[in-house]
């Protein structure tokens, strides 16, 4: 039992790190290169402008749904899935 818990927590931790790496990319890394990105365009918007106005925000929404689903799979694999109560 305790072994199962340890692997579960190890996987959860890795999943958290992957999530935060993606988050770091969309929240900070791309804005380190704002002036370079703005020379490109997306949907007719300058790219850095688009990312800060809409793109990164959308990336976070998608990331959160993905990360919640992935974590549910990890829960199921290790028998820590909750019964549907709602």
């Amino acid at each position, binding site marked *: 039992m305790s072994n199962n818990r340890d692997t579960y927590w190890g996987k959860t931790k890795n999943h958290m790190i992957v999530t935060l790496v993606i988050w770091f990319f969309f929240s900070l890394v791309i804005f380190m290169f704002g002036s370079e990105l703005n020379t490109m365009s997306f949907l007719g918007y*300058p790219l*850095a402008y688009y990312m800060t106005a809409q793109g990164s925000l959308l990336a976070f929404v998608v990331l959160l749904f993905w990360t919640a689903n992935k974590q549910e799979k990890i829960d199921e694999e290790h028998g820590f899935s909750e019964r549907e109560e709602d």
Partner: protein
Amino acid sequence: MLKGGFIKNLPKIYGLYTGGFAIFIILMAIAEQYGMSAKNIGIMFVAFTVLIYALIGYLSRTVQVDAYYVAGRQVPTVFNGMATAADWMSGASFVALAGGVYFGGYTYMAFLVGWTGGYVLVASLLAPYLRKFGCYTVPDFIGTRYGGNLVRACSVFVLFIASFTYVTAQINATGTIASRALGIDFELAVWVGLISILVCSMLGGMRAVTWTQVAQYIVLIVAYLLPVFWISNQGGYGFFPHLMLGDEVAKIGELEQTYGLVKNSAAEIAAAGVPGGLKQLSVAHSAVPEGGMAVWKYLSLAICMMVGTASLPHILMRYFTTPSVKAARKSVAWSLFFIFLLYSSAPMLATLSKLSLLDPNLASGIIGKSIADVQALEWVQRWSEVKQVFIADFNGDGVLQLNEFFMRGDIVVLATPEIAGLPFVISGLVFAGGMAAAMSTADGLVLAISNALSHDIYYKIIDPKADTSKRLIVARVLLVIIGAAGAYIASFRLTSILGSVAWAFDFAMSGLFFPLVLGVWWKRATREGAIAGIMSGILSGLVYLLYVYPKFSVAIWGVAHEPWLGIDHLRFGMIGAPVCLVVMVAVSLMTKAPDKATQDMVDETRIPTGKTVIGKQH
């Protein structure tokens, strides 16, 4: 009233509510055609929506501790997402965000990334674990995880500073909107706003706040999106503005080139008699400022807002109300989705609003026209009267230049429908939306503060033997006191001394972020470490704020200090949070590791199944 049947019927109930609201809007539009005055339409919108919230608040009354503190932990995922979005988007977000983008351009939009990216931290580091823990308040987690009354009291202290900074601004916003919509004095409107806030929360606590917040979200999102889509379609910019304003953004860039972006000195502006708080457009719409410092300013602001988001108790406590850990995770995703709908629209509104003022080919364009003509416009007159718009003819040529037009940022949301020639019913709707946004955030904040005081200070520290009815009476009395204190400060317009709502984020991140995160993710974190971390974080942040904010530093040191490494008063969490982390880790390693029981408790927190760590009743 709110038994199992209610939860099952939620989609139907809120569907009917939304339909009813749509019918109300149509009735108002018809009334406008039959000659109802703009003022009366504004009154009807605010009064009608506030009465509905009050009714929901009354129907959700409760005498149970579980319902009062965590809405009985039965709020479904999507609805909790809506409630969180309303809790989150304040009057400032609603009224000032588009204006901030309008005047601040790219650098200001770090707020958009910060206020959404923070939810990734909430979802992956905190929300599911705090839900499993089963606490009633955020200090309840810290107090139980680290053990002891001192650490509990320290976290209540941080919560109080952060949330109270925020709540006065919200009550202020409620008062401003109520005074404009109802045509009453600001001082009176603040108290009207407070009573509206209290009827939504006092009888039913978290349960009442949850169901009114869902209703408020629906009003505020309709009020925000409808004008954006309407203006975009009416002007022929595209039926879906978010995807189709590329040409308009480019056009604004060209117009900025033609007109030239000029920033007049503060002395010139003062000499021209421009009222305080009004701004001229001097920052490019979509261009990225050059240089390493500009990049750092953007990144540091985004970091402060993200980490602050993940530490604000009134947001974290919304995830205590879901039925399961799984639901808490999904609920964060839904919250962000509902927030995204508004935040991604703010830059679009700023673009449409700016283009309609700047483009000389449009009937609404004012730049380059004669000042006498512009001053004859109805909306210019109306907003000039209340000192929200001002024209200063610096070069005396009688023609309006870009740098000669001053306005308050709020105008972008409040007056754009009028400027673009939309019927007044839309402006009335916008007032109702602003009121909903300010009320819902104020409700969440007042409840967060009074719950922490009643549960953590009164029940856990002062009188652990208090029975249920006594606890709930204390909770309600505190709610009224906190609300009244906020309204008192707001009514004397002392809020200007409190500076910016960004401070709330910086205070919260300085004192709470690392104690919360390490409480879950680092078993070795000790009570002594947490106490030292919380206090050193909040105090170092506070001292730096006093040092760097000109008003404070002139009062204390007699001079204004230059910000260190560009860390100004909006970003002082960049000092507090690292101090908190270093001190907390160092002190934890120097003190004895937490005992077995505490370590087991952390282990239990980390898995979704099983009973909550604290237990059902406490």
